[in-house]
């Protein structure tokens, strides 16, 4: 007789007994959050926790797309620039061309996905290294963003005011729109990664591309699509950024690709592909946010500690994965 718990487990994707990095990540997050709560008064509150999500909404949205790309053994360095491009693009379309925000968003999302698909095609058809092609994509998007406008443009559309003022009351906690966007994208990303053939194909390609080929999986379409999806996510992150700041700025998201990659890796996803979990990416973003919030709360610690701590965590996780894999 199967218990209810087994039956439930049976309906979801497999959780390995050796999903070690994920547990380490969860442990680190809890430890960090509790340490911060111990030192800083008022840190241990629903408000701070929700702000972790809303303050890092566009990082998190970009990290979801990045997770999928890294699943497949690739990497995309263009996301920060795409965020900058879509943010200024949206702002210009709305303010200068009087386009309805919905239409501007659609165009921005299409541009992001299109750029991603283009880079994916180059990577797949010509077997070019992803990091180089997406570097070129980064230059392209950043340059194009500054081409549109070198200055930031404020958006004064009624819809923007409405959305940025919106809060969803969850019990006593008020959840702002940014956090809701992030949660939605994370859920969608989780569904794609763990409940669709596409997601599993990506993991198979990242795990062993030769095997995936011999298993008859559609490698080309999957690889091109994943860069398109990532471009879409980056564009969405750019739009959320305009909502958050109420303006478009071509310089937005500078270096954000590194933060996104770091969040994914700290979340226990193998940077060489084939192994990982979307839940880990959420934890990675939360760890990222906690460090940032703690530095902010402290007031004495400088912002650069952020990068150093993130670099150290990256090192720890990469070495952990190295030894974890080598032991087998």
């Amino acid at each position, binding site marked *: 007789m199967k218990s209810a718990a087994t039956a439930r487990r049976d*309906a979801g994707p*497999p959780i390995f007994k*050796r999903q070690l990095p994920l547990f380490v990540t969860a442990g680190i997050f809890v430890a960090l959050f509790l340490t911060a709560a111990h030192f800083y008064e008022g840190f241990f509150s629903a408000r701070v926790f929700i702000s972790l999500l809303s303050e890092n909404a566009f990082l998190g949205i970009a990290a979801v797309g990045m997770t999928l790309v890294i699943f497949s053994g690739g990497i995309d360095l263009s996301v920060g620039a795409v965020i900058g491009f879509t943010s200024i693009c949206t702002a210009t379309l709305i303010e200068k061309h009087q386009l309805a925000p919905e239409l501007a968003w659609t165009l921005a999302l299409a541009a992001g996905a299109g750029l991603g698909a283009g880079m994916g095609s180059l990577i797949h058809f010509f077997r070019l290294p992803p990091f180089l092609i997406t570097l070129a994509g980064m230059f392209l998007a950043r340059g194009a963003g500054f081409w549109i406008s070198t200055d930031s443009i404020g958006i004064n559309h009624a819809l923007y005011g409405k959305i940025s003022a919106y809060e969803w009351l969850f019990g006593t906690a008020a959840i702002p729109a940014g956090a809701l966007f992030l949660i939605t994208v994370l859920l969608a990303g989780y569904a794609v990664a763990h409940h669709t*053939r596409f997601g599993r194909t990506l993991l198979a390609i990242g795990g*062993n591309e030769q095997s*995936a080929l*011999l298993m008859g*999986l559609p490698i080309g379409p999957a690889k091109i699509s994943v860069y398109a999806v990532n471009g879409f996510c980056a564009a969405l992150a750019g739009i959320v950024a305009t909502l958050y700041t109420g303006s478009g700025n071509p310089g937005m998201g500078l270096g954000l690709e590194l933060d996104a990659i770091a969040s994914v890796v700290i979340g226990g996803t193998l940077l060489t592909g*084939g192994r990982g979990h979307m839940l880990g990416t959420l934890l990675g973003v939360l760890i990222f946010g906690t460090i940032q919030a703690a530095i902010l709360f402290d007031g004495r610690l400088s912002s650069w500690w952020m990068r150093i701590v993130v670099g150290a965590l990256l090192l720890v996780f990469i070495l952990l994965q190295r030894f974890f894999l080598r032991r087998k």
Partner: protein
Amino acid sequence: MCAELLELRGIGKAFPGVVALAGVDFTVRAGEIHALLGENGAGKSTLIKVLTGVHPADAGEIRLNGAVIRPGAPKEAERLGVSTVYQEVNLVPSLSVAENITLGRQPGRFGFLNWRAIRRRARAALARLEVECDVDAELGSLSVARQQMVAIARALDTSARLLVLDEPTASLDEKEVAELFGLMRKLRAEGMGIVFVTHFLDQVYTVSDRLTVLRNGQLVGEYVTADLSRLELVGKMLGREVSDADFTSHVAAPAATMQPVLAARGLGRRGAIAPVDLALHAGEVAGLGGLLGSGRTETARLLFGIDACDSGEISLKGATVRVASPRDAVRLGLAFCSEDRKAEGILPNLSVRENLLVALQGKRGALRALSPAEQVQLCEHYIKTLRIKTADTETPIKNLSGGNQQKVLLARWLATQPAVIILDEPTRGIDIGAKQEIEQLIAKLRADGLAVLFISSEIDEVVRNCSRVLVLRERRLTGEIAGAEITSERLMHLMAGTHE
């Protein structure tokens, strides 16, 4: 049951520079286990890849149940009923057992996977094989034997009528092999056709009904296993009939009292080669005989420090030495020509000169660079004495023919003035003329006082060149013959395991 399940007629396949298959016929009946045999380069893997649509054939036709099929991709072959388990387990180790069985054909609805159904289906596939296995386990955490079973379960998850097993037993122990055979017999009884690629002769006789032998991309013949003696089979694989005029070695052995240059005692590595003792003397060509997979290359790799041994020791001129890397080996005066010229030998984009001098330069160290004049002199010397055909010393080595590439690699090692040289299949994939030249060179090296360890699948070559032969079978040293004892027949007996 005797229906022709699969018929391949006149299959031809060429890759740039090589004809891998020429006019090969191959027939498998429903309800039989059909062994596919051949030495390296015989064309077994290519034939399988043609059959499974990885490399579509250039010529010929494939019929399955009488209907012509042209699989253009693995997925198509699978749909047609041809399922394959490849040599190295071609699954994704970081995914679960259930996923590996169903990947690419997972049940689901509205684009979302139905994990419950995936697990059910995986359990059913494993149950059919009578394998107990947690479908949620990560594949990489299982033993290779288990992974192999999962791969077979995946192959059978479709409505397979023909199952191709490409060297499935290579990394299994005896008990696991027995289990696999039980499974194969069960499937045979269900009417499935099974193609079984292996190089273990015992296994061929244990499990197969009929067999097909390929050699150098051509069909040697199709036989009923029970009607073909082991010795005859080895003869077919090596391209020699037992009735052929029997060669005897005429190579003089050096004085036996001499201290060996290189000696190994109990040298072994688990899963690669059982501990062996061997000694090489100056001025002799010792052969390392055996069929493919008998542990020849593995022994050479241990001697040269490529793989770490887990037992035994190596001594050079009587003194025990540590050979932890090829670098150590080169500094001690060893040289090793790998059988895989492309992956382990040439530096494809570098020039003939650089390829020729890299080992000598490595031995001297970076700072004691050879002067341009010395380089030219050395290159010209070897190009002349080995008759290397190249436009000039600056031509990239990838532009040379296989035989000339091989000569450059030999020159690479001769330039280091080694005391011992290990030649692993030095004549593979090169033309007849170059083969003869390389054999002459080996004779000259012996006369110059080098100790040569010669590894070859060509039985005649071993007889012609060696004054002593160590024979390996199934990863252990099973015999040693010397001088006039070396005849092709005796060698074949030793290799086939029919000498007692």
